[in-house]
């Protein structure tokens, strides 16, 4: 139960980072934090159930997260080039 609590706390921290930090990079990091919380969870459960599926999934998550970050950083860089800021308030042109 302890691990699950830690995971939930970590996940929540990720959420809070995503919602309250004001730059895109921080938000991306929040997402990573959430994913890592899940990884922890998976590894814990994998050990609990004595099978490898959870660990395999967490490895996959690493890979996918890396891909996501790759694309994400590219987009963020492009945005930064154009506007010179990463503040999330800048990017509210589309609304309504």
């Amino acid at each position, binding site marked *: 139960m302890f691990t699950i609590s830690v995971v939930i706390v970590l996940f929540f921290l990720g959420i809070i980072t995503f*919602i309250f930090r004001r730059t895109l990079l921080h938000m991306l990091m929040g997402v990573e934090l959430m994913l890592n919380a899940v990884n922890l969870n998976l590894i814990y459960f994998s050990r609990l159930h004595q099978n490898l599926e959870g660990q395999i999934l967490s490895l996959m998550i690493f890979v996918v997260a890396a891909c996501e970050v790759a694309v994400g950083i590219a987009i963020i860089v492009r945005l930064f080039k154009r506007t010179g800021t990463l503040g*999330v*308030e800048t990017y509210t042109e589309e609304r*309504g």
Partner: protein
Amino acid sequence: MENSLILVIVILPLIGAALNGTVAATNAFRKKEIWGEKFAGILAFGTVATSFIISLYVVFVKMSGLESIACTPYEWLSVGGLQINLTFIIDHLSAVMLLTVTGVSSVIHLYSIGYIHGDESSVRYFSYLNLFVFAMLLLILGDSMPVMFIGWEGVGLCSYLLIGFWYKDEEKAMAGKKAFIVNRIGDFGFLLGMFLIFANVGSLTISNVNEFFYHHNSMTFFWTNVAGICLFIGATGKSAQIPLYVWLPDAMAGPTPVSALIHAATMVTAGVYMVARFHGLFLVAPVAMNVVLWVGALTALFSASIALVQNDIKKVLAYSTVSQLGFMFMAAGAGAFVIAVFHLMTHAFFKACLFLGSGSVIHAMGGEQDIRYMGGLKKYMPATYITFLLATLAIAGFPPFAGFFSKDEILWNVFASAHGSKIVWVIGALAALFTAFYMFRLVYLTFFGNFRGTREQEHHLHESPKTMTVPLMILGGLSVIGGWIGIPKLLSLGIFPNLFHDFLEPALSKYGHAHIGHYSHATEYGLMAFSVAIALAGWFFARKKFSDPKIKLEDPRNYTGFVKLLWNKYFIDEIYIKFIIEPLKSLSTNIFLNISDKKIIDGAANGSAAGWRKVATIFSYFQSGNMQAYGFYMVFGVAIAFILALFIF
């Protein structure tokens, strides 16, 4: 189809109407004439006269010894329990009406040829007139209520068209419209009565209805009377009784022959005819009978009183017609249907004569209708004068003119019948006095004394052409002798048979007749003498007041008191406008249109649309563009999902 001659009687005027109507429309469309008024008039007169002749043949030859003959061209409607054949039936009652109508119509058609001469739409005029005769014949001969109703509304239509004949004059068109709508109010009652009867009787054939009510009445007393009153409402509309009489005086806007034919002799008597037709029903509906009696009496007095002070020659005659119709209803209400129909017939003669006479006068005066500007016409137009005088004597009730017999019998029946009432007799007598007075006032002011019109008018004064005077003479003659076929036994001492009574009595007393109380012959003679005295008194007062050759008539604007009230016709029209028409219009415009339709219903529809747009706009503010807010929504959604899960799980 046996008795197809009846069909010919009905169809002939329709053919005339159709031919003339087509030609009239074509003429108007091409702005030139295919055939002129002469041919149209002859065609119209010819069809109606032929109808009259065939009617005579049918009634006196084919029908002799028979109770009735009928002819059914086709089945009109057959729906569920309702089966209506387009059947024309001639029995003794409708025979009297048939002859009166076709006869008087023929005469008036003839008169019209002279009267309408020179009018640009004379062809149209004859078409309408013929159509009217057709509709009237449907009304008279229809053996079931719906067929009767076709004619009933048909004559209303023709009346509408003919009153508004000179439609370019807004007021005349208005008068036509008024006539139609007021008639519709009556028809509303007629329809309701018809429905009530159908719901109970299961048939609308008149003989079945009478049979039902007299022999197997399964309706309660209350509803029987309601049925009677409903039908009578129809009659008040058509026959211009209180409270629906208002259209008839206005109807004088139409050409004078129309006033004579429709608004005096035939159409307006349809109500009386209808009540007589349904005597089986009315005899078992005493309350309804009483209503008929009282409404008739009050109308007779009321309109006679208005007629006392009117200055328009046709208006006087119009109110007189209303009053005389009241007399007929008095008779019907007293249970003396035969007498009602008798007065109907005599009235047709003398009132038609009076109207045609007035038409002749107006013709001569170049359209002037106000008797204040007439006077002394008897030397210019003797034929008109004499016939007018004869008819006046008839209507005033001088023996041995036609009106005397019928009116006297009415008063006697009201006095003596079990359905009658002494108070009503008093009212009737008073109305008779007024009648004599205003008629002689009319005669004195029109034909005696000095001419009060303009020089130019005086220059043009002339006797009317033959086509107009011959009908006057015919009708004048009938006003004299028309009553002789119905001389009461008491008066003729049994020497002459009471032809009219003998002819009609069997048809109208099938379901028994009103009980006449026991009075001595002396009473009857006394009352008869009293009637004569009333007529004389009316003449006397009128002579005293109006025979001065240099009489100066007061300007109506200076009238005061009761006379002012009379001159303004008791302000009934104004009351109707103020309390019925205007509230209806304002209700429609202000409440129904502007509030209920626009504000409430459309408001609700448009409002909910606009309101939801507002809500949607508010919703769209959530879409702020800030992705952290979006993340927050997601978390919020998660929270909701968990709350829901916890609540339910």
